[in-house]
C-alpha cells in the first residue's frame, strides 16, 4: 500500500498541471472570499450577516478547480492508457483507487487549509473595515471562536470530500469531460432546482440531499436553527455522496476491463 501511495504521489507531483491548478484553486478561493467580504454593504439598522460564511464564499469556486485535479488523476490515466501499466504494477485494483484517493485528498486538504486560513484572515480584516466586528454584535471572526473554527476546518474538509467524490465519479465514468460534467451537475443542479421547486417537502429534501448545499452548512455560524440539518450532518451528506461514488468506482474498477 505504501508503495502504491508513493507511486501515486510521484505521478501527481510530476504532472505539470497539478501544482498550477492547486495554486489557482487556493488563489481563487481567497480572492473570491476577499471580494465578497469587501462587497458587504450593511444598512444602518444592521443585517443578519454570517461573517464566517461570507469570508469563505470562495470555496464555491475553489471546489470546481479541486474537482478538475481529482478527475484528472483518474481519467488522465485512461486517456493515455497509463491505467493498464498502473494496474499491471498493482494488480489489487482497490489499492490503486485507495492510493489515488489518499494522495488527492491529502493534497487538497493541505491546499484547502492554506486557502481557508488566508480567507478567514482576509475576511476578518475586510469585514472589520466595514464595521462587521464582534463589538457590533456579530460573531467574532477568529479561529479561537468555536463555530468559526468549525466553519474553517470544515471548509477544508469539504474541499477534500469534493476531491474524493470527484475521484469516485471519474473511476465510474472514466472519461474526463463526462466525469467533470457529472460532478459539476450534481453540485450545481440541486441549488438551482431547490430555488424553483416550491413544494415545501421537496424543497427541504432537495436541500438536505444536495452535496453542495448540505455540505456547505458546515460554514454556517449564525441562525443554525433555520437550517434543515446541523452543520456536521450537512458535511455528512457530502461524505455519503463521496463514499457512494468511491464505492461504485471501486466496484466498477474491480469488475470491468480497464
Amino acid at each position, binding site marked *: 500500500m505504501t508503495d502504491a501511495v508513493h507511486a501515486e504521489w510521484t505521478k501527481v507531483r510530476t504532472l505539470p498541471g497539478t501544482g498550477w491548478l492547486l495554486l489557482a484553486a487556493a488563489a481563487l478561493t481567497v480572492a473570491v472570499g476577499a471580494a465578497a467580504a469587501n462587497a458587504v454593504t*450593511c*444598512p444602518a439598522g444592521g443585517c443578519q450577516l454570517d461573517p464566517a460564511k461570507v469570508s469563505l464564499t470562495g470555496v464555491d*469556486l475553489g471546489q470546481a478547480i479541486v474537482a478538475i485535479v481529482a478527475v484528472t488523476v483518474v481519467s488522465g490515466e485512461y*486517456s493515455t492508457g497509463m491505467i493498464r501499466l498502473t494496474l499491471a504494477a498493482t494488480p489489487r485494483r482497490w489499492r490503486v483507487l485507495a492510493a489515488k484517493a489518499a494522495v488527492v485528498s491529502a493534497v487538497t486538504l493541505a491546499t484547502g487549509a492554506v486557502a481557508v486560513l488566508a480567507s478567514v484572515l482576509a475576511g476578518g480584516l475586510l469585514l472589520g473595515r466595514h464595521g462587521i466586528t464582534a463589538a457590533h454584535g456579530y460573531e467574532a471572526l477568529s479561529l479561537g471562536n468555536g463555530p468559526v473554527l468549525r466553519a474553517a476546518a470544515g471548509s477544508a474538509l469539504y474541499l477534500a470530500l469534493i476531491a474524493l467524490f470527484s475521484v469516485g465519479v471519474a473511476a465510474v465514468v472514466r472519461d474526463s469531460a463526462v466525469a467533470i*460534467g457529472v460532478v*459539476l451537475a450534481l453540485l*450545481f443542479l440541486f441549488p438551482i432546482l431547490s430555488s*424553483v421547486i416550491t413544494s415545501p417537502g421537496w424543497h427541504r429534501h432537495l436541500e438536505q440531499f444536495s452535496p453542495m448545499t448540505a455540505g456547505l452548512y458546515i460554514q454556517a455560524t449564525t441562525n443554525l436553527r433555520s437550517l434543515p440539518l446541523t452543520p456536521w450532518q450537512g458535511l455528512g451528506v457530502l461524505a455519503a455522496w463521496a463514499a457512494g461514488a468511491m464505492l461504485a468506482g471501486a466496484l466498477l474498477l474491480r469488475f470491468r476491463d480497464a
Partner: protein
Amino acid sequence: MTTLAPYRPELHTGRDGFAQLLRAEWTKFRTVRGWVIGMTAALLVIVGIGALTGANSECGIQNSPNGPSLACPAPPTGPGGEWVTDSFYFVRQPLAGNGSITVRVTSLTGLYSTHGLTAGGAGSPTAGMTPGVQPWSKAGIIIKASTRSGSAYAAMMVTGSHGVRMQWDFTHDVAGLGGKVSAASPRWLRLTRNGDTITGYDSADGARWTRVGAATLTGLPSTTQAGLFAASPGYSVNTTSLGGGSSKGGPTLATGTFEQVSRQGAWPAARWTGQDLQGTMDLALSASAQGFTQAGNRLTVSGSGDIAPATDNADSVKKTLAGTFAGLITVVVIGVMFITAEYRRGMIRTTLTASPRRGRVLAAKAVVLGAVTFAAGLVAAAIVIPVGERLLHASGNPIPPVPVLTWLQVVIGTAALLAVSAVLGLAVGTLLRRSAGAVTAVIGAIVLPYLLATVPGILPVGAEQWLLRVTPAAGFAVQQTLTQYPQVQTVYTPGTGYFPLAPWAGFAVLCAWAAAALVLALFLLRRRDA
C-alpha cells in the same frame, strides 16, 4: 509480343467543398454512440426536470392545517390580456356618451406603514402609519368602462414624485407637467371622451391647456363610469447583502384634494358615489381607511392599491425551463468532447490532413454541433413549456398569459442558448485541448454566475446585475417573459425573473463570448502543431 498497359487505378478527384466537410463532421457525430445518447439525454432531462418542477410546486391556500388546499387565485386580466392590479378608491358617476371632466388638484399627501399590515384594531385603521407620499402614489380623474376589475380606462393624475401622468389600459404611461403638486402650484387636469377616444390635458393655471395624450379604448360602452380616484402602491424596501437580507414594507394611503370639479356632457346621476375597488391579493389597506369627503365643490379622496400591470407574478415559464441547466451541462460536455476526443485519439491529424484549411474544419464542427444542439433544444423547449405549465396549473398555480411572440422567443431562444453554449464548449475545448479544464471553464462561466445571481442571499443586488450583464450567463435573459414597467416600483431582480438586459441583448453577450473564443481557437489551431 504484347505490351501490358500499366495498371492505373481510377483516381477520383477528391472534393473538398464545405458540404463534404459538414458531411464528414456529421458522420463523426452520428457514429459516436455516447454523443447521440448524450444529446438525447439532454433533451429528456430538460423535459423531465420541467415536469418534476411543475408537478411539485403546489400553490395553495390552506384554511386549516389538514384542510383541502384551494388553488391560488389569478389576478384580473387587463384589456391587453396581461395580468393587472386594479385596486383603488373610486368616486364616480355614470357618464352617458361623450363628455368631459375637469378638476384642480391642490394637494397629494400620503401615509405609509413600515411594519407590515397595520393592526387596525386599536383606534383608526391608519394608526401608527408615517406621513409620506410614495413615488407612484396617484390621485386624479378617470374614465373607466365599468367597475369590473381589469376593465378599460384612461386617467389623468398627479403622482408622488413623477409629475402629472396620463395612463390608460394599465400598460400605457405618458408624462405631463413635472414637479410636485401643492396649494401654491396646483395642477389642472381634464379628460375628454369622444367616441372611443379619450384625450387628456393638463394645465398649471386653468387657462392654457396642453394635450398630454390620447387613448383609443376600442369597444368602450356608451355609458362609462367617470370621476375621481386615489391609489397608492404598497411600500417595500428590500435590502439584500451577502449572507443575509431584510425586507420591510406595508400598505400605503394617498389622499388627493380636488377643487372646482366641473363636468360637461350628460351625467344622469345627481351625486357622487364612493367605492373601494379591491383586488384579490394586493397590498392595500382595508376599506375603512379609504373614502371621500365632499364640501361643496371640493372633494378629498383617500385610496390605497394601484392601477397598473401586475409585476409580482410567479414566472411559470422560467420554472418549467429549470432543466435547461442540466441540458446545458450535457451539451457543453459534448461540445468539448467533439474536439478533445480528436486530440486524444490522434484523429485530429487525419482530419487536418484531409482538410488542410484548418479554419474550415473548426467552422464545420461548429455548424454541425450547433445545428444538432439547436434541434434537440427546440424539441425539448417546445415540449416542456406546455407540459410544465399544465402540471403547474394542476398543482394550483395560476398561469400568466404569455403572448405568442414571447413564447416563440423563449422556445427559439432556449434552443439557441444551448447551441451557442455547445459551440462555446467546442471553442474552449480547441483552446485548452484538455477536457476537464474546458468543461469546468465553460460551466463555471455560464452556470455558476447564474447560480450566484439568482439564488437569493448569495450576492448583493448590484453584483447580481453586473454578473448577468457581462458573463456568458447573460444569455439566460432570452428566457425572460416578464416585462419591467417604469411606472411600477417593485423589486426587479434576476431572482424574481427580471434580467438586467433585454432578452436578445443578453443573448448577444453570450454570442460575443462564443465568437471571441472561436476566433482565438482558430488563431491557435492555425499556429499550433496538432
